[in-house]
């Protein structure tokens, strides 16, 4: 953790440097403060015609030193830290659709660092600390809200497991509190405490956890990267890799060939497809995970709550909708939509936990494609192809990891060495027997 602290100090220093960059850039765009109450007022009176795009729309150059494939949260964060913290230049992000069009815009926005294993918890706690300074770091409102996450427990065995997990969290510098039944009741008196099958016996609380505005995170990183000179190239699908003598030379795209010194792949659910173009099979299956939002309600759920007996997690967005989800559908899918049986299962989990939501109407349901790895943990590593790097296998925990994933991947690309907190996330850990399996369910991706 000492090294992670050092990185936070570096990030802090680069933040001050960014302050300078922002001021210089701000002069270029005609206006010292681009967003202010006065500006909103003036724009309101003049038909909102004066707002400008947050980032450029550049044509691809013939070659770059660094190409990041995937303009989602992790790809944009990687480009951002590569340029800002590690001082690299000639960087491009290639996105086949529009920025933030994948899972960064489809998740349930929860941020937390309540993991158990030593390969995971320091990394996620590093991410949590980056979240805490994120808005100052990239000078953009990501609506980071530390409203706390409560994992409910329903059996004595689960209490022991959560006590152990809480202690692991404390060891890694995170915060954790084990609440008894009355402690939970004081927070959420309307939960179904006396469910005959799954009575609530307590919970593990992480107060520093919470939610963030997921699109805002992508936009903040995109804007920051663009200001630092990164080319964000949209509608540019990678269709192949040019590999010579085991070394990456560049990528073929729908907008022509682009040469590259190093290529980083951060494409979440498409990891298998993209890496297949480099001739690699991955320890990953792509699965669909559904999420749901109810109609807007008055403030009723102040934090994030997870059901410990089924799979159900819920928070309330600032617009008032209950945002919730549950299990994967459980079969390989690239369809971004799931089936009714899982919707029913999630709704039953919600009703078992908080019967009061039974009258709320469901507004929307959607699906996202998860790159489910064989042990439920991610991969941030080099690949057998020299100069080709992989960031994937995030399962359904990718959003909370966005800042640390970007930082660690940028660290790997810039220095050639893994970040201290991401040393366990090796691609060869499966064949070598060093899996990081939080749930202990083995090589069965739909169970992680």
């Amino acid at each position, binding site marked *: 953790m000492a090294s992670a602290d050092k990185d936070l100090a570096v990030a802090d220093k680069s933040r001050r440097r960014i302050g300078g960059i922002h001021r210089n850039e701000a002069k270029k765009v005609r206006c010292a403060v681009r967003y202010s109450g006065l500006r909103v007022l003036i724009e309101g009176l003049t038909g909102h015609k004066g707002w400008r795009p947050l980032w450029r729309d550049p044509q691809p150059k013939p070659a770059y030193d660094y190409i990041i494939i995937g303009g989602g949260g992790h790809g944009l964060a990687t480009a951002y830290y590569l340029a800002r913290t590690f001082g690299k230049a000639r960087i491009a992000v290639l996105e086949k659709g529009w920025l933030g069009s994948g899972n960064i815009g489809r998740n349930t926005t929860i941020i937390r660092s309540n993991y158990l294993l030593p390969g995971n918890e320091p990394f996620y706690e590093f991410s949590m600390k980056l979240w805490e300074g994120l808005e100052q770091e990239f000078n953009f409102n990501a609506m980071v809200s530390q409203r706390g996450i409560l994992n409910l427990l329903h059996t004595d065995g689960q209490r022991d497991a959560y006590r152990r997990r809480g202690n692991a969290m404390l060891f890694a510098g995170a915060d954790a509190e084990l609440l008894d039944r009355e402690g939970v009741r004081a927070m959420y008196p309307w939960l179904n405490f006396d469910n005959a099958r799954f009575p609530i016996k307590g919970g593990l609380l992480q107060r520093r956890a919470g939610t963030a505005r997921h699109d805002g995170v992508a936009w903040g990183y995109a804007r920051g990267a663009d200001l630092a000179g990164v080319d964000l190239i949209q509608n540019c699908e990678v269709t192949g890799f040019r590999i010579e003598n085991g070394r990456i030379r560049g990528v073929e795209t729908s907008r022509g060939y682009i040469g590259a010194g190093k290529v980083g792949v951060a494409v979440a659910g498409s990891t298998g497809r993209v890496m297949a173009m480099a001739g690699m099979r991955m320890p990953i299956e792509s699965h669909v995970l559904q999420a749901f939002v109810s109609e807007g309600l008055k403030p009723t759920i102040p934090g994030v709550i997870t059901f410990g007996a089924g799979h159900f997690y819920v928070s309330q967005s600032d617009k008032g909708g209950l945002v919730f989800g549950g299990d994967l559908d459980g079969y*390989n899918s690239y369809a971004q939509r799931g089936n009714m049986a899982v919707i029913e299962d999630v709704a039953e989990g919600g009703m078992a936990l908080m019967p009061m939501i039974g009258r709320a109407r469901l507004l929307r349901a959607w699906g996202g494609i998860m790159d489910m790895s064989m042990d439920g943990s991610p991969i941030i590593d080099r690949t057998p192809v020299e100069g080709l790097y992989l960031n994937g296998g995030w399962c359904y925990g990718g959003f909370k990891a966005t800042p640390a994933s970007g930082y660690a991947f940028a660290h790997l690309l810039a220095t050639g060495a893994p970040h201290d907190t991401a040393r366990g996330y090796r691609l060869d850990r499966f064949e070598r027997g060093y899996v990081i399996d939080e749930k202990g369910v083995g090589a069965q991706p739909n169970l992680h």
Partner: protein
Amino acid sequence: MLIPHPLLGPCDSSEFTYLGDARLIDRPDGMAEGAAAAFADYVYLRDNPAGVHRELWFHEQGDRSWLVVTRNTLTHEILGAELARDVALGGRGE
């Protein structure tokens, strides 16, 4: 999704549990040379295609048979189902 069970006719997919790629039928020989590498491949690596995928489903809430279902992962369209036993004995499973 309705899975066309070869013996029972159309069955809801929620009656089934899912294992994965039908290649899991072809278990490597543990006594052969290079078995460790073959098993690392077998256990951990997947093709994970976007499109037609042959996969193992277990009819847990039904007749407890294993099926090889051919399904499109982009559309969820099911193109066929056969008993895994027939596939294994037919020496295919590819």
